C-alpha cells in the first residue's frame, strides 16, 4: 500500500521536516510502503500526505497530524483495494474526507 509523506512540511516554519518525522513515528511497524517525497505541493496547508499507486490517481490529504495515522492507514488500505483508486469508488475515512485537497488522475 503506497503512502507518500512530505518531508518538508511545515515548509514555512523553522521546524520544516518535523511533520514527516513525527508521522513516521506514528506509522512505525505498519504494513504500508512509505515514500518520503520532498514536497506534495500543498504547503500553505502543512501536513501533506498522499496515496498514489500505478494506474490510479494521486489523492492528497492536507492538514494532517500524527493523530490521523490510523485513518491514513485505513485510507491506504481502501485505496489499494479499489481497482480505480478514484475517491467515490472507495470510501475515504470520515476523519479525512474534508481534507482531500487534490485528486490528480493519471489519464
Amino acid at each position, binding site marked *: 500500500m503506497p503512502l507518500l509523506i512530505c518531508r518538508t512540511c511545515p515548509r514555512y516554519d523553522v521546524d520544516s521536516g518535523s511533520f514527516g518525522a513525527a508521522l513516521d513515528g506514528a506509522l512505525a511497524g505498519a504494513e504500508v510502503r512509505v*515514500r518520503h517525497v*520532498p*514536497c506534495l*505541493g*500543498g504547503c500553505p496547508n502543512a501536513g501533506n500526505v498522499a496515496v498514489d499507486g*500505478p494506474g490510479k490517481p494521486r489523492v492528497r490529504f*492536507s492538514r494532517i497530524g500524527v493523530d490521523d495515522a490510523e485513518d491514513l492507514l485505513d485510507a491506504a488500505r481502501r485505496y489499494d483495494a479499489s481497482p480505480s483508486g478514484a475517491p467515490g469508488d472507495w470510501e475515504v475515512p470520515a476523519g479525512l474526507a474534508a481534507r482531500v485537497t487534490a485528486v490528480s488522475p*493519471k489519464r
Partner: protein
Amino acid sequence: MSKVLFRNVSILDSTGADPYPGDVLVEDDRIAAVGTVDEARALHAQVVEGRGRTLMSGLCDAHTHFSWNNSADLDGLGGMPVEEHLLFSMESAKKYIDSGYTMCLGAASAKERLDVVCRDAINAGRIPGPRYLANGPEIAVTGGALIKSITKFADGPEGMRLAVRQLIDLGVDQIKLSMTGEEITGTQRAEDTYFSDEEVAAAVAEAHRRGKRVCAHARSAESVKMCLRNKVDIIYHASFTDAEGMDMLEANKDWVFVAPGINWLIATLYEAEAFGFPQEAAEAVGYKKELEVATDGLREMHRRGIKLLPGGDYGFAWTPHGTYARDLEHFVERLGFTPMEAIVSATRLGGEIMLRPDELGQVQPGYLADLLLVDGDPLEDITVLQDHDKLHAIMKDGRFHKEDSGIAPRSGLDAPAGPVTDATRRVVEARP
C-alpha cells in the same frame, strides 16, 4: 589514481538491456569496468557493498530553471533581489544533485547571469550541483512575454541577432525563445504564436553560427512547425502539435529533442488550489484541454520514436524544486512509456542532449562516473526515484556527492565478488 568498487550491484546500464548482477569499478572520473572486474585492477579500491541494490546512471532534467524560486505566481520569479536570487539558484543546484540529477540543461534564467555563475561555480568545484548547460533570460517579442521582468525583448531579425549576440557575450550555452503564450497568464494564450519565421530563422542562424543551440517555449501547433522549419534544437512543451507537425517531428527525429514539461500541466490543473489557483480556474483558462491534447500528442510522438525527455518546469510553488523525478512517473503512467523507456529517456537521451552521448548517461566502460546507487528497482517501481532516502549514493565525476553509509574502509579485494553469472558474462562478452 582513486578507485571505487561497487560490488554486487544490479547494473541498470541504460542500453535497454535488463539489469544484471555484477561489479563496477570507477577509476578517477571514469567507469573502468562493468560487470566483471579484474581482482588485481580493483586492489586498494574503496569498496561499496551493493548487496543487490541498483546501480544506474545519474538522471537528466532537460528543462531546468535553477532560478525559478518556488514562487506562487509568475511575477514572483522576477521580484527577488539578485543577491538572494543567486543564493536560491545555488540551493536549487544542490537540490538537483541531491535528487540524483547529474545532468541539467538550462531552459532560462530569471536574471542575466544567475545560470552562468552557477554553472561556473559548479565546474570549479565551489558549489555542489549537476553538470549544467547554462541559459540566459528568454527572448520574447514585444507583446509576447510571459513575465516581462525576466525577459529579454527583441523584435525583427536584426533585433534577434543582437539579442543572441548579447546573450552569448554573457557566456550562455544555449538560447531560449519564448514563442507562444501560457494559459495561466490569462492574456497570452498557449495556442498563440508571437514570433515570425524570419525572427526564429535569424535567432537560430546567429546562435548556430556561434556554436550554440536554441531551445523554445513552443506550445502552439504553428510554433512547433516553425521550430522544425528553422532547426530549433530543443522544443519545449509542443502541447498542440497537429498532424503536419507530428509528421515533421518524425521526419527530423534524428536531431530534434522534445521536453514536454508535463508535470507543470498536471500540477497546475489539479494541485495548485492552495496557492490560489483552483482546478475550476485552471480548467476555465484551458489547462484541462491542453493536458488532454498534449497527452495524446506525446503518446503519438513516443510511438513514432521522437526523442522525448523528462524535465521542467520545476520551481513554482506547486511544482517545487526537489520533486523532479515525478516526471518519470508521468512518462510511465500518462505517456505510455515502460519504466525502462523512461529510465533510458532520463539517462541515455540525457547524455545526448548534454552533447556527450559517448560519455554521459550510461553505465559502460569509458563513460564518466555519474552514478546512483538506489535501494530498490526503478523498473519495478519508478516512484522509488522520488524518495531521496532511497538514493543511497550519488556520484559525479567519480566523486561521491552522497556516500552510502555502509562504505567499507579502503581495503584490498579480500574476497572475490562471487561467481560470474551467465547473464553477466553474456553482457560483458557482447560489448564491442
